C-alpha cells in the first residue's frame, strides 16, 4: 500500500517538477521586471495621470476578494458548522492567506514610493478608507495564521517527529506544540482548539466582510466617480469575492481532493455555492447596468459604453459575462449529467476564478476613461495625460511573475503542510499515540 502510494507520487512527481520549473522560470522573469520597475519607478508602467490605477490595483482587489471569499467559505465549516465542507476548511484558509499576501504585494508594487509604505502605520489618517483597510488586512492576516496554526498544530507536531527537512520545518511551524499522550486529554486539547477556531472564525466573519466590503468602499466613497460612488458597490465586491473564493476552492478540491463518494458530494456542494454567488453577481450587474443606462447621464453611460464597446469589450463580454457567469454556470449544470463530474466542476471553478479578474479590471479601469471636465482630455495632451490605458509589457511580466511565485509558494505549502487527512497524517497520529502508550 505504502509502495503503491509512493509510485503514484513518483509518476505525478515528474509532471509536478515540470510545473514547478515553469512557475519558477516565470517567477524569475517577473523578478527581473520587478527589479526594473523598482529601479526606474512607475514610468515602466503604461499608467497615466488620468488613468492613475490599472492592472496592479485590479489584481490587488482581485486577490483581496479571493482571500475574503476563501476565508468566508472556511467559516461555513468552523463557525456555522457545515461539516460537509470540513475537508476543504484548511485549504480554504491557506488560500485565504496566500491570496491576501498576493494582494498586499500588488498594492505595494503599485506605490510611487514603495519604500515609504510603513508611513501608513506611523502617520495613519483614519479618515481614509485605505488606512482603515490596511489595519484590517493586518488583523485579518493574524487571524488567518492563528486559525491555521490551531487547526494544524497537532498534525504538524506528529509529522514533525519524522525528521528530515520537512519534519524540521513542520516542528518549527508547530511552535513547539506537543500533543498530550493520553487520548482523553488529547480529545480535550482538540476540543479547546476547536472552540478557539470557532471564536477566531466568528471574529473573522465581520473582519473578512470589512476587509473586502471595505476594499469596495475605497471606491464607493469617491463622489467624483459616479461609476464607483454608491452603497451597492461594496456589496457587489463581497458577492464577487464569495464567488471567486468558492470557485477557487472548487478548482483546488477537484485537483487535490480525495476521490471518493464523499469528495464528489463535497465538490457538488462547492459547485452549487459558486453558481449561487455568480448568479447573484450577474443580478447586481444587471441592476447596475440597467439603472445607469436608463439615466442617460453621460457620467454613467460613457463609462458603460467604454466598457462594453471599446478596446476592452472582450473583458466585459468574454471575461465578465461568459467566464465569470454563463460558462461556469453551464458547466456546473452539465456536471450532473456527465461521467467526469470532477473535470467539469474543476473547470467551472478555474474558469470562474479567472473570470472574476475581469470583474475587477472593469471596476478599476473604465472609471478613468471619462475626462473630469468635458474637453480636459484635449486641453493639453501628452502620453502620460491620456484617458486610455493598456498595461505595459513590464506590468504584464511583473504580474505573471508574481502570480507564478504565489502559485508556487501555495503549491509547496499544500505539499508540506498537513492540510488534509492524508493516509500519512493518519498513520503518523496512530504511531504517535501507540508509542506514547507503550512508554506510559
Amino acid at each position, binding site marked *: 500500500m505504502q509502495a503503491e502510494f509512493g509510485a503514484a507520487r513518483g509518476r505525478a512527481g515528474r509532471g509536478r517538477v515540470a510545473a514547478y520549473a515553469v512557475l519558477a522560470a516565470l517567477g524569475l522573469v517577473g523578478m527581473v521586471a520587478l527589479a526594473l520597475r523598482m529601479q*526606474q*519607478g*512607475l*514610468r515602466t508602467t503604461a*499608467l*497615466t*495621470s*488620468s488613468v*492613475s*490605477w490599472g492592472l496592479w490595483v485590479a489584481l490587488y482587489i482581485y486577490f483581496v476578494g479571493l482571500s475574503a471569499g476563501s476565508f468566508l467559505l472556511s467559516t461555513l465549516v468552523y463557525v456555522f458548522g457545515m461539516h460537509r465542507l470540513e475537508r476543504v476548511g484548511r485549504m480554504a484558509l491557506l488560500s485565504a492567506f496566500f491570496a491576501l499576501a498576493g494582494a498586499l504585494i500588488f*498594492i505595494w508594487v*503599485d*506605490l*510611487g*514610493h514603495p519604500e*515609504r*509604505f510603513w*508611513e*501608513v502605520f506611523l*502617520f*495613519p*489618517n483614519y*479618515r*481614509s*478608507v*485605505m*488606512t482603515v483597510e*490596511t489595519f484590517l488586512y493586518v488583523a485579518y492576516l493574524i487571524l488567518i495564521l492563528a486559525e491555521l496554526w490551531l487547526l494544524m498544530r497537532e498534525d504538524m507536531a506528529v509529522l514533525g517527529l519524522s525528521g528530515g527537512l520537512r519534519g524540521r520545518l513542520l516542528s518549527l511551524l508547530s511552535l513547539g506544540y506537543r500533543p498530550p499522550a493520553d487520548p482523553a486529554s488529547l480529545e480535550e486539547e482538540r476540543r479547546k482548539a476547536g472552540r478557539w477556531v470557532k471564536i477566531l472564525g466568528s471574529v473573522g466573519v465581520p473582519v473578512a466582510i470589512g476587509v473586502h466590503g471595505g476594499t469596495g468602499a*475605497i471606491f464607493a*466613497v*469617491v*463622489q*467624483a*466617480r459616479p461609476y*464607483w460612488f454608491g452603497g451597492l458597490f461594496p456589496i457587489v465586491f463581497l458577492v464577487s469575492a464569495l464567488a471567486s473564493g468558492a470557485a477557487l476552492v472548487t478548482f483546488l478540491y477537484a485537483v487535490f481532493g480525495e476521490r471518493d463518494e464523499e469528495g464528489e458530494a463535497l465538490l457538488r456542494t462547492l459547485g452549487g455555492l459558486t453558481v449561487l454567488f455568480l448568479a447573484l453577481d450577474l443580478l447586481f450587474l444587471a441592476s447596475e447596468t440597467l439603472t445607469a443606462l436608463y439615466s442617460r447621464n453621460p457620467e454613467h453611460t460613457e463609462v458603460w459604453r467604454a466598457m462594453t464597446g471599446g478596446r476592452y469589450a472582450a473583458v466585459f463580454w468574454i471575461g465578465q459575462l461568459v467566464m465569470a457567469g454563463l460558462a461556469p454556470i453551464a458547466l456546473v449544470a452539465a456536471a450532473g449529467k456527465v461521467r467526469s463530474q470532477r473535470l467539469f466542476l474543476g473547470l467551472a471553478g478555474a474558469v470562474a476564478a479567472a473570470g472574476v479578474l475581469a470583474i475587477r479590471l472593469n471596476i478599476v479601469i473604465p*472609471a*478613468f476613461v471619462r*475626462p*473630469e*471636465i*468635458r*474637453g*480636459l482630455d*484635449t*486641453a*493639453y495632451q*501628452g*502620453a*502620460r*495625460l491620456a484617458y486610455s490605458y493598456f498595461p505595459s509589457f513590464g506590468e504584464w511580466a511583473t504580474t505573471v511573475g508574481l502570480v507564478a511565485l504565489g502559485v508556487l509558494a501555495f503549491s509547496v505549502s499544500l505539499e508540506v503542510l498537513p492540510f488534509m487527512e492524508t493516509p500519512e497524517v493518519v498513520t503518523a497520529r496512530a504511531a504517535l499515540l501507540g508509542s506514547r502508550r507503550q512508554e506510559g
Partner: protein
Amino acid sequence: MERTTAAPPSKREKRGSLDRTRRNLLKAGALVPAGLAVARAGSTSQAAEAPQSMPALPSAPEGPMLRMLKDLRRALQKPVEQRRWTMVIDLRKCIGCSACTVACIAENRLPPGVVYRPVVEEEVGRYPNVTRPFLPRPCMQCDNPPCVPVCPVSATYKRPDGVVEINYEKCIGCRYCIPACPYGARYFDWGENWTDGTPARQPYEDEPSHEYGRVWRRRGRGSPVGNVRKCQFCLHRVEAGMLPACVTTCVGGATYFGDASDPKSLVSELAAEERAFRLKEELGTRPKVIYLR
C-alpha cells in the same frame, strides 16, 4: 532638502543660471516674457523674508495688476490663518492663448504628464454662429477638498490660508487622491523628462522648482518624482510678495488673485459679481477658484 533662504547664489552663478534658464525656456517653446524670469531670479533669495524687504512697487497709474500686488502685500501683513487666497478667472477676457499653462510649466519646472493649469477649449454652435469658450483649470483649492480625507498618510492637507498642500516627502504615491478630485487637477510625477530619448539631458531640467518655499531637484526617483503634484497658487511666489505666474502672464488680464477675506481686495469685489460661478458646486467642494461668465 535646502531652504530657499539658504545661501543666496553668488552674482556669477545667478547670471549663469539666468542665462541658462532663458535659453532653455525658449528651447522648450516656453515664451515667457524675459522680464518675468529676471524678477523671479532676483527675488528667490528673499522668499521667506518679511514683506517690508520686498522691492518697491512702481509708481505707475494703478491698474488691476498693481492693485492686486498691493492687496497681496496687505494680506501678507496678516497672520497666515487670516488669509484666504482666492483666484478669479474672467472667462470673457480669456483668449485661450495658454500663456498661463506654459508660464506655470516653466515656473514649477513641470515634467511630462504634469500640467497644473491646462486651458480647456470647446467649440459651441454651428457656422456661422460659433463660439470657442476657454476655461483655464488650476487646482480649485477647495474649502472642502475631497482629495484630503482619502490620503492614507495625511500627506495632503488644507493649509491655514486655504491652499491645499502636498507634502512631497510624506506622499507614498498611492494615487488615491487622483480619482478623488472631481476636477482632474492632480497629476503624478512619473519621473520622465522632456529630453528623454534625446542625446543629452538639458540644464533646464536640473533647475529646481521652489514649490512650497522649498528647493526641489528632480533627480532619479527622489521626490517630487513618484509623488502626486498639483497647482498650489505659486505659494512660493505669493509669500515673496509676487503674484502667481499664471496671473502675471495672462495676456487678456483674465486671471485675478488675492485675499478674499479682505473686503477691499479686487478678488473680493469680483467674487461678488453676479456672473460669478464655481465648477461642480453641487458636490459640496466649495472651490476657491471663482469663474466669471
